[in-house]
């Protein structure tokens, strides 16, 4: 039951954020809002399919995760958004801290592969690692600015939060405790819903900067 509540609440959050992003796109007609709408749209579709399956059949898909395809697509849009928002100066900037993304991500990816399928994990972890790499670099670069461009750090912090929570979620799913709130998986998933919603105001700040 808690899993269904968790999924339905995430569906509601991403749908609301998607509508918000869509309205921002309609007003501003800018690329970042379009990509953000696509991110929330595809994420919502994935959650919709997952929640629908749970609601109708009282179980999770057993053969192939259709929802995972939608979630991978949503992270492709997030990666594109991360790249679109970066300035030429930021793209030239390098910082060793960015290497934290593959240093932490690769061992975890191998760990997930041993617990699940190879291709899906390779794609998802690969995309999130590149997004984390861009976000760490972008956050450090933004924090070194003294003008309004400093506000871009909030976008990068939001993206990093989503990725860190996702990794926590995937790790928790490898050690399934129970279908109750004592399972850390649900803590991470509720946190993920909150961080997904924060992405909308954070992107607004980045676009305005």
């Amino acid at each position, binding site marked *: 039951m808690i899993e269904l509540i968790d999924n339905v609440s995430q569906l509601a959050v991403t749908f609301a954020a998607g509508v918000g992003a869509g309205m921002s796109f*309609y007003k501003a007609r800018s690329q970042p809002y379009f*990509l953000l709408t696509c991110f929330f749209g595809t994420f919502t579709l994935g959650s919709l399919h997952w929640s*629908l399956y749970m609601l109708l059949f009282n179980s999770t898909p057993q053969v192939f995760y259709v929802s995972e395809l939608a979630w991978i697509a949503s992270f*492709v849009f997030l990666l594109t958004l991360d790249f679109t928002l970066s300035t030429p100066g930021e793209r030239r900037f390098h910082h060793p801290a960015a290497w934290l993304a593959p240093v932490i991500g690769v061992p975890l990816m191998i760990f997930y592969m041993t617990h699940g399928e190879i291709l899906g994990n390779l794609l998802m972890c690969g995309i999130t690692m590149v997004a984390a790499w861009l976000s760490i670099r972008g956050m450090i670069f933004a924090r070194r600015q003294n003008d309004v461009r400093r506000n871009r750090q909030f976008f990068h912090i939001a993206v990093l939060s989503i990725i860190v929570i996702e990794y926590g979620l995937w790790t928790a799913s490898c050690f399934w405790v129970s279908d109750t709130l004592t399972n850390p998986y649900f803590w991470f998933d509720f946190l993920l819903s909150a961080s997904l919603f924060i992405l909308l105001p954070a992107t607004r700040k980045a676009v305005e900067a």
Partner: protein
Amino acid sequence: MTYIENVFVCIAAPLLVAMFCVGKKHFRVFLFFIGGMSMCLLSAYLNTFFAGYYNADLQDATTQIAPVIEEIMKLLPILFYLLIFEPKPKEVFAAMLIVAAGFATFENTCYLIQNGAAELSFLLIRGFGTGAMHIICGAIVGSGMVYVWQRSWLKMAGTFGLLCAAITFHAAYNLLIAYGGSVQFIAFALPLLTLVIGRILGKLLKHLPQQPN
């Protein structure tokens, strides 16, 4: 047992003859229609193969395997068309819809052969449900492709995103149908409902600026 190859040959033969008679202007319409039917035929083979490979039952096959295979197969002729012929945006949308129509027509034909054509009311619902669902999935991908293929920064992510959106829509539809009962009538209404919402959204976004980069 349904000999779908024989059904395919029977339907495609007059279309092929007509295609060579109709002239250059309407040649592509027939080609894409036959292309859609061919993709439906190949999808049937692949669905059977993967259902056997994963040892999936009918419910798993229809809700988790078929949507992925069918949507990927429907996209292939359009990707080929886009990459080789570099058509105008309007032509891409029309081509995608014709491929989807060919696919839906052939699927419905096979359904009729397997289940008979006695109940007109149910066939009407199926026609405007499952048939229309393929068209809507085609319209989602086609209309999106018109937008994303004009922007180099969005081509890959956009195409993948659109494909996943179509797959998820198709899978959600199949889920509702597989559950049966009154829930399946929600599914039958879904394509037409999506069409209405799509038209409204299309009108709202009509004044978007064209960005060639």
